[in-house]
C-alpha cells in the first residue's frame, strides 16, 4: 500500500492538482495471513567476487546433459565454467545460457547433500532470463530421490518461466499420480511488466498442511494436503535447485530469434524456519 501511494503521487500531472482517495479497500481486497515469525536458517547472498564459483559448501553443480536431456529433452550442456556460472562481484549469482551454433551451454546448481529442510519458507530474489525456449527455474526435490526416485520423491517448483511469456511465472508440485504433463500448477501474470526486467521475490511457505506460493509476498496459489489426486509426499526434507534450461518439453525449442546470451541473476536464496 505504501508503494501504491507513491505511484499515485507521481502520476499527478503538473497542470492540475488532484485530491487522491483510495476507494474499495474492503477487507476482501487484501490478503490477511496469520502472523508468523520466520527465523533465517540458511542463506546465500552471493557476495563473491566477479567470476567466482558459488560457495562449494552450499551448492554443487550438475554437469552434462543428464539422461534424455534431464528427462525433458532439454538441449543445453551444463558446465561449471565461469562463463556459465559465477558471482558477478555485485552481490549476485549469474547463470548464463550461451548459444554456439545449434548447441547450448548453461548451469544448474543444487544443495543436495549439503542442505535440505522439511517445511519452512524458501525464497529467492532474482531476475529471470527471457526468449522463446529459455526455461529458468528455482525448485526443489525430495531428498529421498536416490532411494524412491521421481516422482515419488516429490518436486516443488517455486518458480518456472517460459521465456516466450516473460510476464508469467508458474508454481507447481509434482508427485505420484500428478507429475510430468499433469501436475498441480498455477500461473501468475504481471500486468504491464515482466519478470526479466526487474528483481522479484519468489517464495513458498510450506507446512504439514499446505504449500503457499508467493510472488513479491503476494499469495497466488495455495495447495493443501487434500488438493492432490495422489499421495502427499511433502513431509520430508527437500533440497533446492537453480538452473536455466534451453529447450525441452515444457518450453519448446529456442528459435533463431531467441536472443542469447541469457542470464538469470540471483540476488539471494534464503531459507527460514518458523520460530517456536
Amino acid at each position, binding site marked *: 500500500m505504501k508503494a501504491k501511494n507513491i505511484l499515485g503521487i507521481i502520476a499527478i500531472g503538473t497542470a492540475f492538482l488532484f485530491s487522491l482517495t483510495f*476507494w474499495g479497500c474492503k477487507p476482501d*481486497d*487484501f490478503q*490477511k495471513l496469520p502472523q*508468523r515469525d520466520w527465523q533465517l536458517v540458511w542463506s546465500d547472498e552471493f557476495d563473491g567476487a566477479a567470476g567466482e564459483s558459488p560457495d562449494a559448501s552450499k551448492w554443487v553443480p550438475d554437469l552434462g546433459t543428464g539422461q534424455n536431456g534431464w528427462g525433458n529433452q532439454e538441449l543445453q550442456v551444463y558446465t561449471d565454467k565461469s562463463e556459465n556460472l559465477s558471482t558477478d562481484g555485485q552481490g549476485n549469482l549469474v547463470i548464463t545460457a550461451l548459444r554456439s551454433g545449434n548447441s547450448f551451454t548453461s548451469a544448474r546448481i543444487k544443495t543436495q547433500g549439503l542442505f535440505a529442510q522439511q517445511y519452512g519458507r524458501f525464497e529467492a530474489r532474482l531476475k529471470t532470463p527471457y526468449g522463446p525456449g529459455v526455461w529458468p527455474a528455482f525448485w526443489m526435490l525430495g531428498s529421498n530421490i536416490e532411494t524412491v526416485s521421481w516422482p515419488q520423491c516429490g518436486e516443488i517448483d517455486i518458480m518456472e518461466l517460459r521465456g*516466450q511469456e516473460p510476464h508469467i511465472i508458474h508454481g507447481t508440485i509434482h508427485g505420484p499420480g500428478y507429475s510430468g504433463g499433469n501436475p498441480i500448477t498455477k500461473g501468475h501474470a504481471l500486468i504491464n511488466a515482466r519478470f526479466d526486467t526487474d528483481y522479484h521475490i519468489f517464495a513458498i511457505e510450506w507446512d504439514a498442511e499446505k504449500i503457499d506460493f508467493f510472488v513479491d*509476498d503476494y499469495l497466488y496459489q495455495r495447495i493443501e494436503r487434500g488438493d492432490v489426486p495422489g499421495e502427499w509426499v511433502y513431509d520430508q526434507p527437500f533440497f533446492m535447485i537453480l538452473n536455466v534450461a534451453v529447450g525441452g518439453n515444457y518450453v519448446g525449442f529456442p528459435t533463431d530469434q531467441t536472443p542469447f546470451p541469457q542470464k538469470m541473476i540471483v540476488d539471494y536464496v534464503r531459507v527460514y524456519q518458523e520460530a517456536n
Partner: protein
Amino acid sequence: MIMMIYNRLLKYAPAGMLVFLMLGCERELNELEPVTYPTNPEVFINGFSPGLNYAAFGGSVPTAFDVDNQVTYNSISTTSMRFEVPDAGDPRGAYAGGTFFTEVGRDLSGYDALTFWAKASQAANIDVLGFGNDLGASTYQTSISGLAVTTNWQKYIIPIPDPSKLTAERGMFFYSEGPENGRGYTFWIDELKFEKLGTVAYPQFSILNGEDQVETSFVGVSKAIGGLSSTFNLPSGINRTVNIGSAYFEFSSSNESIATVNAAGLVTVVGGPGSAVITATVGGVPVKGSLTIQSVGDFQSAPVPTRDPAKVISLFSDAYTNVPVDYYNGYWAPFQTTLSADFDVNGDHVLNYTDFNFVGIQFSSPTVDASAMTHLHVDIYLPNTLTANAAFKIELVDNGTGGTGSFTTNIPVAQSRQWISLDIPFTNFAGLSNRAKLFQVIFVDDNDRIPSFYADNVYLYNAGGGQPTAPTTAAPTPTHPAAGVISVFSNAYTSIPGTDLNPNWGQATVVSQLSIQGNNTLKYTGLNYQGIQLGSPQNVSALGFLHLDFWTANSSSLKVYLISTGPVETPVTLSVPTSGWTSIDIPLSSFSPVNLSDVIQLKFDGNGDIFLDNIYFRN
C-alpha cells in the same frame, strides 16, 4: 550462523487493481498553459478515429484501401481495414501504399507501441508498416520491414523508439506492399491503436546497423549515416528492430576539424590528415555503432598510367580515351548488392563501389578484340580496414568462343587503404581461351571481406617485349605523420643518423642507390643476404608496424628480419615477384621474440634484384 528474524506482522498485498478516484480542484488555469494535443490512442477500431485522413502514395493503386464490414478480428469488431495488393503489371498501380494521418497532431508520449491485429489471404511479408509518415517532413517516421503475416489473425507490435518525442505526431499509420512473387493478395488490419504495454523491454538504438566502421576518406567527401534502428524485446521474448529517422538521434564528431556531422546525420570530411569518430546518443545514452573517418587529407589519386596509348584499350581512365562502355555497374538482379557512388576529384574520375558483393562492367557494342593485348590493368583502393586477407576475384568474359576467365588475387591486410596496381597477364585468367570478343569485366568479393572499393585506370594493354627490370615510377609517397615514424630509409622522413646501409657482413649482394622520378631508391643486385646497421639501438616498442615498399621482377624468395642484441632475429616472408610496387605494413608483433626496445639491425635474404624504399617504423 547469522540469525535474522523475518517478522511478518501484517502481510497483505492488493488482490486486484486498486481503484483510485481523482477529484480535480477548482483552481483557475490563467497562468502558463502549454499547448496540448489530444492523447487519443485509437487509430482504427470500428472505423476511422476522429480527425483521421487517408492518402494513397504516388504510383500505388489509389483504391487499395477500403473498409471491410465482413472480415473482422473478432465477433465484437464490426469493421476492419482491407488492403488489396495488385498483381504485377496492374495498370492502376504497382503496389498498395498510403498513410493515415491527422490534421491536428496527437500527443503519443504516454504510449510505448502501435499495435494491431492482422491477417492475409496468403502467407506474405508486408514490405513496410509503421507510423510517423505525415506526408511532410515525417520527422519521427518509424517502420518495420518484411513483417510476416499469415492467414490467421495475430496481434503485432511496433514499438515507439522514444515516446517523449511524439508530443504532436500526425502520422498515425502507413504501409507499403508490392505483389508477392508477381501476384497480388489481400491483407486486413484491425484494432489499430497506440498502447502503453509496459512489456516492451531493452531498447537498443543503433547507427550503421550497430557496426563500428572505419573508413578512409578525403576532404570534400560526404556520407549519410545510415542503418538507423532501434531493437526491442517484445512481450513474446523475441527481438524486433524498427527502422527510424535521424531525428531520434543526437550526432556528434570527436574532431570537427576533420569531419563534421549535422542533425540529419550527414558527415562531411573537412580536413586532414587525421581522424574523427562519429557517434550518436539517444536521450543522452550512447547508441551502438560508430563511424571512424580516417581522412588522408586531399584526395590521393591512383598512379597516373604511363603506358603508350597506342598499346592500350582503355575502359575507364582519365589518361586514355575510353572505348564505348554500356555501364560500369549492371545492377544485376537479383543477387547483386553492389551500389555505385562514383566521384571525381579535380577532374580525376574514380569508380566507387559500395555494398560490394560483385559488379560488372559491360562493353558490348562493340565488343573488344584484345588479341593483341597481353595484360589487364586496374588500380583498386580499399577504403575500409581489412579484418583479414581478402580474395579479390576478377573475371573476364568473352562474348564469342573465349568463355570466361577468372583470376583471384590475395590482398594482405596491410594493403588496404592504399592504391593497389594490378597488372595481370591474360594467361593468368584460367578458362579464357581467347579474347577476340571481350565484353565484360566482373569484380567479385570472393571471401566477403571487401565492403567497398574504389577503382581507376581499368585498361587492357600490350606489355610489349617482356617485363621491365626496374621500376619506372617512384614508390608511393608515405602519408603517415612524421611524429609517429622512426625512419631507416625514405625521402619523406629524417632517417636515424649514422645508419650504415651496407655493412660488411660477408655478403655477395651489391648495394646501390638510384633516383627514380627524383626519389632516392635502394637497390640490391644479386641478393643473397644484406644487412642494415642502425646508427643507434632503437626502441620501437611503442610503434605498431614496419613499413616497406619493395619491387622485384625476378626474385622468387625474399625475407625481412628485425634483429635485437643477442642477436635475436625473426624473419617475415615477403610476397615476390611483385607487380609494381608492393607496400606493406608488417605488425611488429610478427617479429617476436625480437626485443622491440632494442632493435639494432635489419636484414634481408633471398634472391634476385630488389628495389626498396620507405623503410620505417610507424605507429
